[in-house]
């Protein structure tokens, strides 16, 4: 019940790293420890092009959550630490988060997959300043991303609320998919919210970008670099990111109802 930790090494995870951004990933007592690759020659700002780990989203009772059914999803993205060289020129800009999508495999296929996701990026390491990063399927075979400006100090805890349906899948219609996020400080500082951004809202406004399948919802974690290429083979140290990704979900497998009669 309640929060569940996302485990990128769980038995039902489907993982891919199409641009080889990570050297390894580990789960240490619920903390995700991602070690970046020594080098990466692909500069991309889209989380679906990062290392991704997808699981079938289930409710608290183990039942699968489908797009044809109502569900409510809250995610929590937590920065813990980062070592190595990052966030400078020719260094990875650490980015990580969660999202939902239609396909567990080939997540970065912009023609066959639909998604929306939200997380953090650490563009400025001073005082743990972060930006919120979002991405979505767009135009039927493309993607879009949005990136807030650097928020204030101590913004390592990020929450995202998803609005999905009922006009998705067979009933696909735009204006039924959105995510809104906030960020702030940790529990020890009373979760003080960053006020430079009231909320970070991102929606899908094109029919051909909306989830168009009624079946299984996949929850995916993403870890990578927001832009930049790097090569530490002769100098520098590949960064290691430690973070936690959690989610809270409610769902009705009986469907939406809503006959209006």
């Amino acid at each position: 019940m309640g929060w569940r930790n996302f485990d990128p090494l769980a038995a039902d995870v489907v993982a891919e790293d199409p641009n080889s951004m990570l050297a390894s990933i580990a789960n240490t007592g619920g903390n995700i420890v991602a070690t970046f690759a020594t080098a990466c020659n692909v500069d991309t700002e889209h989380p679906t092009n990062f290392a991704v780990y997808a699981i079938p989203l289930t409710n608290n009772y183990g039942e699968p959550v489908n797009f044809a059914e109502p569900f409510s999803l809250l995610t929590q993205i937590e920065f813990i630490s980062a070592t190595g060289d990052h966030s400078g020129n020719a260094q990875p800009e650490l980015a990580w988060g969660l999202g939902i999508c239609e396909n567990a495999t080939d997540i970065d296929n912009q023609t066959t997959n639909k998604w929306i996701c939200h997380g953090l990026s650490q563009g400025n390491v001073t005082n743990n300043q972060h930006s919120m990063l979002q991405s979505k399927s767009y135009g039927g075979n493309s993607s879009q991303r949005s990136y807030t400006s650097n928020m204030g100090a101590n913004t390592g805890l990020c929450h995202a609320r998803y609005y999905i349906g009922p006009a998705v899948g067979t009933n696909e219609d735009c204006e039924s998919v959105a995510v809104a996020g906030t960020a702030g400080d940790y529990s020890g500082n009373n979760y003080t919210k960053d006020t430079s951004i009231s909320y970070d809202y991102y929606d899908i406004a094109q029919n051909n970008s909306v989830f168009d399948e009624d079946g299984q919802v996949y929850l995916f974690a993403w870890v990578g670099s927001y832009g930049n290429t790097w090569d530490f083979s002769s100098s520098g140290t590949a960064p290691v990111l430690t973070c936690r990704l959690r989610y809270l979900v409610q769902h009705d497998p009986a469907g939406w109802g809503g006959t209006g009669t």
Partner: protein
Amino acid sequence: MSYSSRIPGNIAKRTTGRNSPVEKGWRQFFLSDPRCVLQNNTGVTVSSNAAAPCSINESTGNTVITFLTGHDGGTAFPIDGYVAGMPLRTDEGDIITFGTPFVLKTMIEVVSMTGDHSDQGGEHMTQPTISIGICMNASDFDADDNRHMGTGLRMCARSSASEDVEEDIRWTVDSLQTDGSGKVTSAGNAYSGANNSKLQVTEFHVGPDMATQASNAFLMHNEFQTSGDSFNVPNASIDIDGFNANQGFDDAATTVTLYAAIQDMETDSFSGNTACVLTVRFWYMVEADFHGLWGGSGSA
């Protein structure tokens, strides 16, 4: 040879079971639920006497609202009217506070409307407005300092034109005013905001900061046609509304009260009308981390 023993053994599991049946998925909100506190001493005034603007019958499984045939004028705020509220609980009956991380989705389903009803065009007939939301005050719902956030639907169909209940329907969002004193209800455009919709679906977000200066609470809502009409979105984009430090919630220990509210917002007095009867259903689904709370220490 086996035998049984009456000597108690060790407890095999860490818990001893649930203390109440699980209520997963959609739950229907009934204003007549015995767990509800009712606000029935405020609302539309009839002569000099305070009275609720309507009566409620939920014996059929629907919320059937029969409005008064006359009154001296109401307000635009649903929470001034007939309001029922109860503690928000998890699937397993645990009470949720504002310091608890929770997900909450609501759905208002409009079924039908009969009798005399109209819009603000001066016909002096009932104009129903209904909402569902959460608040801090568990009983004095219409208090001017009751922090609340709710969404609803305002009926604008005219019986004089034989209009169906979804005709020109408008969405509403309710909260305290930005200075924290008194109420405010914003409404979508009469002809593009929610017109021809019978469903309103809302996601609520609260916390974890209880002292922020900007939007520790927000909601997202949109309006849809019914399942038989493929949940079409007739008009507008999802609307998101954030609430500032004077409007949002400021006490983690306070129980979240889930409320439904009904009001006749016709501001002019009238009498002798045929009672407007509005049939709706209120739904909600909720889950929380009752024991672990938000976490988020930022340390390994």
